[in-house]
């Protein structure tokens, strides 16, 4: 019964997704003034989770290949469609900060679920706090 707790696995994946998305948002904000830069974003967690991409991330089969695996889920980022400024940059600082707030709440949600599940397990073995 406790070999693989599905709820812990999902909460972990949700937190990993939030972390990867935070990295993509950091890239967008850092490049907010880079000419020709296209803003990127990760697909929603539900989309990635259903498509089974969590398990099949890009792997390096030869040492000479590009190391995309170390970028983790960040490699799934896609261009967002937004209005480009005259220098071809499509980053909007406002939408990036809104996205950052979303990521924050997603990450909090994942950690709360994870922590509450751990509390339940502790209670089950008679060590509730």
């Amino acid at each position, binding site marked *: 019964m406790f070999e693989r707790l599905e709820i812990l696995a999902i909460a972990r994946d949700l937190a990993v997704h939030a972390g990867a998305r935070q990295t993509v948002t950091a890239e967008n904000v850092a490049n907010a003034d880079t000419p020709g830069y296209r803003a990127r974003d990760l697909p929603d967690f539900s989309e990635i989770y259903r498509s089974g991409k969590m398990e099949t991330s890009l792997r390096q089969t030869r040492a000479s290949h590009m190391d995309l695996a170390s970028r983790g889920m960040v490699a799934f980022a896609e261009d967002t469609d937004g209005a480009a400024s005259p220098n071809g940059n499509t980053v909007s600082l406002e939408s990036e900060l809104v996205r*950052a707030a979303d990521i924050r709440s997603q990450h909090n949600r994942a950690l709360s679920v994870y*922590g509450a599940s751990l509390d339940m397990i502790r209670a089950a073995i008679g060590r509730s706090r």
Partner: protein
Amino acid sequence: MADFSTSRAIAASGMAAQAERLRFLSENISNADTPGYRRKTASFQEVLDAGQSTGKVQIGPVELDQAALERVYDPSHPLAGDDGYYDGSNVNLVVEIADAREAQRSYEANLRVFDQARQMSRSLFDLLRR
């Protein structure tokens, strides 16, 4: 976990680039009255590692604005020519101030992202403390 240190490093590269941009702006502003001074401009570019995007940003090579220098009429000036004009700088203070405001806005956005990554990794560590 590596994600948060990456995103902090990226936000820090953004802050460093904006700060460098602000330095060029202050050089331009302080030389607004220097005869013959051409304003410095620098563009941002992505940092590439073995041809692959790292998401970090850096400031590109400095270029001098080739716009015409302002002709100032002052026959008593030591640099004035026969017609009483000398070449001033091509710095436009309004442009520089507007640019500085944009740099500040972007710097603050990077700072917010940095702070958020820090808080998220801290709340991750709080799980261990329960």
